[in-house]
Each structure stands twice: as C-alpha cells, then as structure tokens.
C-alpha cells in the first residue's frame, strides 16, 4: 500500500508545513491578518471576512483570535470605517496596489497606534500591522516639549541657535528671525556671516574677535552687543553659547536674548544714580552752609547782643529794653531752628554707628537735662523698666528729650504735668497697619501725658516738617521736634504714632525692634 503510505506522508508533510507556516507567522513582531472580501448582490465589496490573524494581536490587545476568525470585519471592529483602513483595504483589493498607512485604534480604552501595510494576495488582502504606540507617544512628547520651548522663547524674548562648526551650518529658532526683524523664517539664509552682518558697526570687530577666540579655545561665549534689524531698529542682544562635541564634530548651542529694555533701564538707573549723587552732594553742601555759614553770622549777632546787653542794660529805657529782649529771643529761636534743621538732616548719616543702648540710662540723662523745667512745673515722671535696644545713643536722647519735653511744654494753665512711660513687648502683626515694619518682635514704648492733647485728625500731620498746631506765642517751638522724632525712629527701623483727644492728654507710641528675635 505504497500510495497510502505516500499519502499519509504527504498529509503529515502538509500538516507540518501548515504548522511551520503558522509558527513562522507567530514569530513575527507584527500583526498579520488575512482578509477576504464579501460581495453584495451587485458585486461590490460589502465587508471582509477575517480569515486569519497571527497571535501577535493577543499580545498587543486583549482580543482573542478564536473569537474573530470567520467574522465579518465591520461587525467585529467597526472603527476601521472611521479610521479609513476599511476603505484602503477595499481600494487595495480592487486596484492591487500596496498601501501604507498610520491609524489609531481604540480597543475598549486601550489606545494602539499601528503603522499598517495592505498587500493584495490572491483572493484577499494581507494586513501587516506594526505597533508604533510608543513611538507615537515619544513623538507627541517631543512635540509638546518643542512647543513649550518655543512658547518659552517667545515669552522670554529669547531665540535659540545650533551651529555646526564642521559643516558651517546654522539653524535658528523662529524667535531669532523675529528678533532680527523678519516676519518669515524663509526670508533669510542662516549662516554665521549673515548673522554677523546684523551686528552694529561699532561692535562688529570685537564680536568677531571674541567668537574666533572662543572657537579656538572652545570656551563659552557670553557677550552683549548691538544689532541693527531689517527695519533699522537698534537692539541690544545678549548671546550665550556652549561648545559640545558630537559624532558630527564640534557644535555650538545657545541663545540670543533681546536685552534692549534691560540695558535702557540700566542706563536710566545710572543717570538717576548720578543725579542722586549730585543732589546728595548738594545737600551736603547745604549742610555745610547751614552748619557754618548760617550759624556764623548768627552767633556773632548773639555775641554782640550779649555784649550790648551787659554794657547797656542799666542805661536802656523800658521800651528799648523790651525791644532788645525780643531781638535776643528771636535770635535764640533762629539758632534753635538751624540746629534742629541740622539734626534733622543728619539723622541718616550715622547708620553704621548703632550700638547697644540702655534706654533706662537715656531716660536718666534726659531727665537730668530737663531738671530745671521739671522743678519749675513740679512734674511727676514715672517709667517702667525700659529695655536695651540697638541704636544711636544721642539720637535716642533726642527722641526722649523731644517727647518728654513736649509733655512738659503743652500743658494747660497750672496743671502739674504727669508723664508715664510704659514698656511692653509686641509682635509686628499687633502694630498699627500704617507701618510697613519687617517681621519680628518689637518694644512698645508709650509716652502718656495729661497735657492739652490734640485733635486726633492731626495724628499724622504733627509728624510733618514745620507743622505746628499752635501759635508761636502760645507755645514755643520750631515745628521740627516731632519730625525729628519720626525720622530718628524710622532710622532705627521702627515706627511712631500719636493719638489724643483735645484736653485729654496725648499718647505717643514708639515701636523699636527687639534685640531678641
């Protein structure tokens, strides 16, 4: 029965060959499907029957091969209509032309991108599908990053470049063209020399020199120079470039940045600084004039007046003596005014002379200075234990002298002045909102008196220079006392406030930074 044996051998060969073919197909990295057309009554392709799919499809998706073989393609996977693959398959079968495509599939939420190839084979079409989902994701990320980079360049007014030193090619981002005045990138062929042609004639020589030097040493470039754009506008450009070596030789990668505004603002700032220096010098000159040239003749007048008074006091009539007294008190007032103006203008000069100052000692010294006035008025002055602060001793003395002096001065009739100096500690958030003090702990010093007080609506005005609430004949003063206090406190990084009601005394509150943080 040789025929039978041969037949069996033949069948077994065939089975082996089928198995071999299937194994081979399954080994492929790509999905391979064989589709046969299904015609309607008029002979047009209505659908395809899925005849074969290799098992690669099960690895990429959750689909099962045995659930799809023999089914109509459109029934099984209608999305091939929407993504156009069905029509391409139809065309491929009718024309016999091989078709390549990229299509997106969604298998119940699993998105897969395929790069496909449709090939006509006998009575059907073979669909080769390569899973390119990862590549697509990378491509998308790259697109996003490129977009971000371009957006960032646009926002920061920066353009980027990449210069291949070996080939001499230069690639520029859109913003570089924009910076040079082009509306479209195609209007300009980017080369190193072409870029240099935009550099201002005053800068071209040294720019070329710096770039040539850096090319030979492979040293980072960081220069700012002027360019003249296509529209004739002069701009300042900062260029930073870094060298790196790749398989294609040396490259320079870097940025162009339009720094025109910064440079212009810098030069405005420099001009303002120069102005400020000049006005400071003027102020210093004024100080000198005030300290010497104004005081000098005044001192002489006072000296002559004192001589005149000594010599003539016995012989002068009452009227002349009254005149002379008024001249003497007026000159004394002027001397006070000049000396107060001077101390006002000098408060900020001593910033670096801050030392630890014990306010209890300051108070003792000030009360000694005011001794005569305290005796005259029988004033009662009581104080809490005061803290140590960081400050300028003589300015603290002046602050205490002015505040306590005011309490002794602005007193109704024969009232006995009572001054209470209270101390407590506070945090910045508890301080009146008008202050812009830095964070931290503060000493709160309250100078409370029983004097004539003031209308609370003048609470801020009283600290202004030459602000007086009373006529000179009612209460003496130069209108500078509280202005000096405010400037001293502010020079010590503190704040001062005044609150009061008419005839109910005043409270001046001084905040000074605490030594302990």
């Amino acid at each position, binding site marked *: 029965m040789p025929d039978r044996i041969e037949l069996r051998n033949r069948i077994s060969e065939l089975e082996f060959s089928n198995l071999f073919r299937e194994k081979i197909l399954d080994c492929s990295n790509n999905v391979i499907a064989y589709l046969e057309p299904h015609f309607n009554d008029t002979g047009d392709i209505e659908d395809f029957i899925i005849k074969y799919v290799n098992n690669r499809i099960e690895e990429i998706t959750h689909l099962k091969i045995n659930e799809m073989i023999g089914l109509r393609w459109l029934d099984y996977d209608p999305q091939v209509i929407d993504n156009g693959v069905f029509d391409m398959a139809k065309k491929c079968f009718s024309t016999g032309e091989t078709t390549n495509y990229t299509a997106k599939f969604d298998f119940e939420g699993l998105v897969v991108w395929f790069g496909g190839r449709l090939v006509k084979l006998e009575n059907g079409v073979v669909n080769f599908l390569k899973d390119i989902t990862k590549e697509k994701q990378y491509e998308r990320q790259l697109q996003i990053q490129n977009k971000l980079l371009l957006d960032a360049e646009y926002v920061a007014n920066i353009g980027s470049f990449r210069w291949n030193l070996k080939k001499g090619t230069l690639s520029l981002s859109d913003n570089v063209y924009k910076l040079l005045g082009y509306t479209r990138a195609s209007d300009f062929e980017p080369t190193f020399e072409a870029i240099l042609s935009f550099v201002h004639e005053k800068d071209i020589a040294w720019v070329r020199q710096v770039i040539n030097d850096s090319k030979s040493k492979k040293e980072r470039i960081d220069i700012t120079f002027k360019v003249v754009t296509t529209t004739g506008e002069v701009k300042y450009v900062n260029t930073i470039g870094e060298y790196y070596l790749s398989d294609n030789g040396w490259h320079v990668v870097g940025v162009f940045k339009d720094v025109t505004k910064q440079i212009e603002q810098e030069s405005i700032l420099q001009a303002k600084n120069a102005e400020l220096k000049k006005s400071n010098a003027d102020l210093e000159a004024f*100080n000198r004039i005030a*300290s*010497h040239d104004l*005081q*000098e003749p*005044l*001192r*002489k007048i*006072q*000296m*002559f007046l*004192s*001589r005149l008074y*000594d010599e003539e006091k016995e012989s002068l009539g009452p009227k002349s003596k009254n005149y002379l007294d008024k001249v003497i008190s007026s000159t004394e007032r002027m*001397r006070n005014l000049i*000396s107060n103006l*001077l101390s006002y203008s*000098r408060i900020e000069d*001593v910033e670096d002379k801050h030392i630890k100052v014990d306010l209890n000692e300051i108070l003792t010294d000030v009360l000694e200075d005011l001794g005569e006035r305290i005796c005259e008025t029988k004033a009662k002055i009581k104080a809490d234990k005061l803290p140590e602060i960081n400050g300028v001793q003589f300015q603290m003395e002046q602050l205490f002298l002015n505040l306590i002096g005011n309490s002794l001065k602005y007193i109704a009739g024969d009232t006995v002045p009572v001054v209470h100096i209270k101390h407590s500690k506070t945090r910045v958030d508890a301080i009146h909102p008008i202050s812009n003090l830095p964070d931290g702990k503060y000493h709160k010093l309250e100078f409370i008196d029983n004097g004539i007080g003031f209308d609370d609506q003048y609470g801020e005005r009283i600290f202004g220079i030459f602000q007086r609430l009373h006529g000179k004949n009612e209460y003496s003063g130069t209108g500078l006392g509280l202005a000096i206090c405010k400037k001293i406190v502010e020079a010590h990084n503190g704040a001062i406030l005044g609150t009061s009601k008419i005839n109910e005394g005043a409270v001046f509150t001084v905040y000074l930074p605490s030594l302990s943080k």
Partner: protein
Amino acid sequence: MTKMKILLVDDDEDDREFFAEALVGVKLNTELKQLNNGKSCLDYLMQQIENLPNLIFLDLNMPIMNGFECLTEIRKQQHLKELPIAIYSTSSSDKDIEQTFLKGANIYIKKPSSFEDLKKSLTQVIKMNWAYHMDDFKKENFLLRI
C-alpha cells in the same frame, strides 16, 4: 607764678576781640598772642623752639592754611607733639570734631554765642591746662569737648 602763654589763631577779627576781652575778664594770669591763619601759626611755632606757647586755640575755617592742615603739620614736628591744642570753631559737625581728635587735638570748643559762656569755657580750659602742665594727669587723658 609765670603767665600762661596763649596763642589764638583765628582769621575773624571780631572773634579775636571777643576772645581777648573774655581772657582779660577771667583774670587768670595769661598773656595772649594772636595770629590769623594756619601758615603764620606754623611759621611762628618753628621759630619759637625755646619760647613755645602753653596752649593754642585754633580756628578751623581759615584762609591760606586751614585749621585741619595746620593741626596736621604741627603734630608732624617732634618738638610740638605734646603741645596742648584746643580747636575753637563754629562747626558742630560730628565729622569735623572726630577728625580733629584723630589728628591730635586735645580740646574741641564750639564757639559760644554769649560772652558769659565764652568766659566759662576759657576758665575751664585754662584751669585744665594748668593741671596738665603741673603733671596732674597724663596727656592721653587730656581730651575735652565743650
């Protein structure tokens, strides 16, 4: 008792007159020599090796050579290093005062605005100067600001 020899260097004629009158007024057995700028003061002191004044009052703001320059030049001379110098100026600037002490002045007097105050200041300084010359205290303690 020998008279204290005082040298006043000031370009202001009125101030020299006030000074001279006040000095007579305090009756402290002194004799006064007056000069009107730093240069003439320096020339005078270079000639007076044997007969130096006991105390100099030096104005700051003067023509030809001002008080600062004069003070510096004086302290450069070996025989004048210990000579008591009182600055006598209108300036009340802390910077000026500090400068003069750094340059070797012993006393700083801001010119007073009344004749009585001037007499008081002179009395204080002259008495202190006597004590200094009697070796009652050391030179480094001979510093005063009025």
